[in-house]
């Protein structure tokens, strides 16, 4: 059987703007993600994660290389791809002035479901993602965690084969984040392939079956979280200066070993550049 997501030499270069030169955001990414897996796509801000996800979800034309998602060529059959995937962007995208039910109704209908099927589906996804109580309130009044679950619900109204999520837990407190993780695992149980873009190491560690680390537009490591952590020796772990006594290798150690800096440092660099 085909992989759920497959890319060969995926590239994207943004043309020069103003003073800055052309930016090679993605420089040849090869991925093969089997069905039913949660695949973590990990890297610091600006590493090319979102650009990759935008290309795979047909939002951005592919620069070079090939990509197949849910069995369809992303460049040649974008509308087929759109029918078979769900995508939850970083910004969410729910309609604030509309109620949760109205949001879900619109989403279901746009994916081609009939009114009646959509109504049935709304009950199903709101149970799956625990949307119950605020469903008929205007989304502007919802809490961050509720909103995030709604936005995932919007992306799965049509039972997509592949669900893309870009930084789903950004801005959530630890409790809501853990809660979100439980819900993401529920989706996996339903057989959905999940492409999870994140810069939270713990998130990739907790959820991903396999993951790839991307830095400066290139994949620098790929494997299960355990495989990757095994590559880091205890001495290297000991080098990490931390208040608590480290219990073992973390994905941050993996990132450090490969990229020569901590993920948090990589991010503050990004901020300085910006």
């Amino acid at each position, binding site marked *: 059987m085909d992989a759920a997501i497959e890319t060969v030499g995926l590239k994207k270069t943004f043309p020069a703007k103003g003073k800055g030169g052309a930016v090679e955001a993605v420089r040849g990414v090869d991925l093969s993600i089997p069905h039913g897996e949660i695949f973590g796509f990990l890297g610091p801000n600006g590493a090319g994660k979102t650009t990759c996800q935008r290309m795979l979800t047909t939002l951005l034309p592919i620069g070079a290389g090939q990509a197949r998602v849910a069995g369809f060529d992303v460049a040649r059959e974008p509308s087929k791809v*759109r029918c078979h995937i769900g995508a939850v*962007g*970083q*910004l969410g*995208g729910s309609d604030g002035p509309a109620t949760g039910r109205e949001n879900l109704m619109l989403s279901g209908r*746009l994916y081609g479901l009939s009114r009646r099927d959509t109504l049935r589906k709304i009950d199903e996804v709101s149970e799956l993602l625990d949307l119950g109580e605020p469903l008929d309130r205007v989304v502007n009044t919802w809490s961050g965690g509720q909103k995030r679950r709604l936005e995932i619900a919007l992306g799965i109204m049509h039972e997509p084969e592949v669900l893309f999520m870009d930084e789903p837990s950004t801005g959530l407190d630890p409790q809501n984040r853990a809660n979100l993780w439980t819900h993401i695992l529920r989706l996996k149980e339903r057989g959905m392939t999940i492409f999870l873009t994140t810069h939270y190491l713990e998130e990739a560690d907790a959820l991903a079956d396999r993951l790839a680390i991307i830095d400066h537009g290139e994949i620098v490591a790929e494997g299960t979280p355990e495989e990757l952590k095994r590559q880091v020796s205890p001495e290297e772990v000991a080098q990490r200066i931390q208040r608590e006594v480290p219990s073992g290798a973390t994905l941050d150690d993996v990132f450090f070993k490969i990229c020569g800096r901590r993920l948090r440092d990589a991010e503050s660099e990004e901020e300085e550049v910006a």
Partner: protein
Amino acid sequence: MKKLFTEIGLFFQRKIRENVRQPVWIMSGLMTPLLYILLFSPLLRNLSHPPLTTAQILNSFVPGILTLLAFSTGMGSGWTIIHELETGVVERMRVTPAYRFSMLAGSVLADIASFLVPAVLVIVIAAFFGFEVHVVGLLILLVMLCLLVAIVSAWSTAIGLIVKQIGSLAAVVTTLQLPLTLLSGILLPISLGPLWLRVVAHIDPLYYTVEASRVLATGKLWATSIGVAWAVIVPLTVIVMAWATRVYRKAVA
């Protein structure tokens, strides 16, 4: 085809619902034309001797006000689309298999609806003060102005998607709005001006609708100016809608 109509209906409904839940905007949309009639039209009274009657003033001023209303109603869509870019709504819609044209057409139609309601109200209120209502002429005029709303709304959406920032959009819109309004002859007929001004006015699409609107409002259904207005407005609608759909296809926050 069924998919197209269903989607346009869904996007239209979404926008209308949003508008209805923000009654402040409906009020302000209504106030502008009424304020023009109330605070500006009395200035026109003494422009000629003997002074014009209220009915005469309204007869020449209301058609222009309707054009202005069409123009400003359509203009607002750029602000909305930037908000939708920033909140991820555009991106969410673009990952669905919905036609990009439906997304545009739904919001354009919603703008048309939010033009028609205050427009009819203005006509009714003006009629109360002596504005002569020629039903057929006004209906044709409203159809023409709906196309104008479509042009401006699609244009504003496309510009919003291109510049992506409220500040830049405001700069583009205010730079264009004043010259376009002045050259259109909405406030005072361009025929009062010198030759060069009358020539320059021809680059302003609003000029043609304002000229036609004054004729249509008198109940006259055919004149050269009406034909010219259609010849400008119809192709312009097609061109701008096609262009804005293309911009929609590529838009990323």
